């Protein structure tokens, strides 16, 4: 069950990253496979962003407790 949830989150994040919109006006060939790979990496870094936030919050809670001690 937990495993399914995890893949669901990844799936939704990828979907949000890949299909939200206006058209680009660059003249450089953005590639295909490398572009999709960039989105996958971006999804990974997107999750890392939240993990870092959570880590910061947890660490700050601990440091507060130690201050109070």
């Amino acid at each position: 069950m937990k495993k399914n949830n995890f893949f669901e989150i990844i799936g939704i994040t990828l979907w949000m990253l890949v299909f939200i919109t206006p058209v680009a006006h660059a003249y450089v060939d953005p590639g295909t496979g490398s572009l999709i790979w960039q989105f996958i990496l971006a999804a990974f870094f997107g999750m890392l962003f939240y993990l870092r936030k959570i880590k910061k919050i947890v660490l700050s809670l601990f440091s507060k407790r130690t201050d109070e001690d």
Partner: protein
Amino acid sequence: MKINSFRDPDGRVYINDKHVLRIVTEKGVPFYYEFFTSDFSQKLIAEQRLINTNILDKHQADSLLEQDEDFRDYFNSDSQHNKGLIVEHEKVPFISYPYEWPIEMLYAAGILTIDIAVESDEYNLGIKDASPYNVLFRGTNPIFIDVLSFEKREQGDYTWLAYAQFIRMFYLPLLVNKYFGISIADSLLNHRDGLEPDDVYQLCSFTQKLLPPFLTMISIPKWLANSKKAKNEELYHKKMMSNHEKTKFIYQSLLNRLKKSLMKLLPENDRKSVWSDYMQVNNNYLPEQISAKSDFIKQFLQEYNPQRVLDIGCNTGYFTFLAARHGASVVAIDYDPVVVGRVWQQAYEEKLDILPLHVNITRPTPSMGWGNTEYLSFIERAEGYFDTVFMLAVIHHLLVSERIPLEKIVDLAAKLTTKYLVVEYVDPEDSMFKILTRGREELYNYLTPEIFIEACQRQFDIVDSMLISGSKRCLYILCKKGNSNG
């Protein structure tokens, strides 16, 4: 010499003997005017990482258009460009192209490009393309020349559209060099936009395809390119996020990861090739003969003070460095990219004005691109530029291995130098000459010092000469006819 560049919709470049001019389209004027006068561009210029750029005011632009008929025609030839801004760039002394660089130079250009992309983000700017053609070398230092590459990044945009181009043009050519020994010239001369993951996939073994760095840089992109998603047009729509802090984090992480991947391809210091140890162990000279040859060259440098030297067949650059340390600006060419890379590394460390290029003088870089006019051939760029040409220990390779007639060698030398030719005559009795002939001695029976001199004297006067004692080699300083010797 005339070059123009036209792929970027925001502007065009026009280069002639006097000027390097860029026309910015009317649409791009507000952004680029702000960029050219910004602290960021001024900082990059001061650090000598971005080409010095001067915006021409209306008076300057009008007077230039009035004086230069050819530029006026070019300016007026396109309705999109004839209302824009004209800027003038500082001229980089000698233009070189990525397919003439050893891996060390492509690597340095790649690091410069990605560093500029990362730093631009601090100013909410980005670079819209990641091509090594955006970089030239002033001596050994890479300098970013494509000022129109800068663009404003939209808030919420977390992708870098030039990501795949960076991989095609910097990462993959360096990767295939490291793992398959394919030179940069082989990768980039025939691929204008670099290597596709598909091109490299075919070279990989089964296990390589499943292991890093090939798995993430080649195999997965190749498999994804064949997936259904790749056929969906929405793939190319711009992706935006509302959380700007997250956008910045993702974008910076993508660029930093790419830089780290590139840094894993940092060229090794002691790469070897057939010619890389020539000056240390594998040459035909006794120590006192090298010393006599050096003294002769040093004396030439002191007496005639050449400003621009072309060293043909530079090997590890022994004489290139002598000339550069004397104050000359040297372009050093060799057909072995490994020795060219070594020259770059040493010259970079010693901060000498040397531009080492992987050019084979018997098959020099051709003119390339649309109509053969986008990128000039080596000979077109070199003709009339150098006041001195060195051809040291190279004549026998041209005569024997490449079967170039002596007269043609002298003619090309006369085309490349405006004044001096420092040339080493190698007699058919020389041991290296004999190794090269491989049983074809009778083809070179005609060659004597007298015949050599006679061929040279059609184009040059002899200024000085020295027989390298105990050898079958002789050094000549020649001055092109019509020049005074001083």
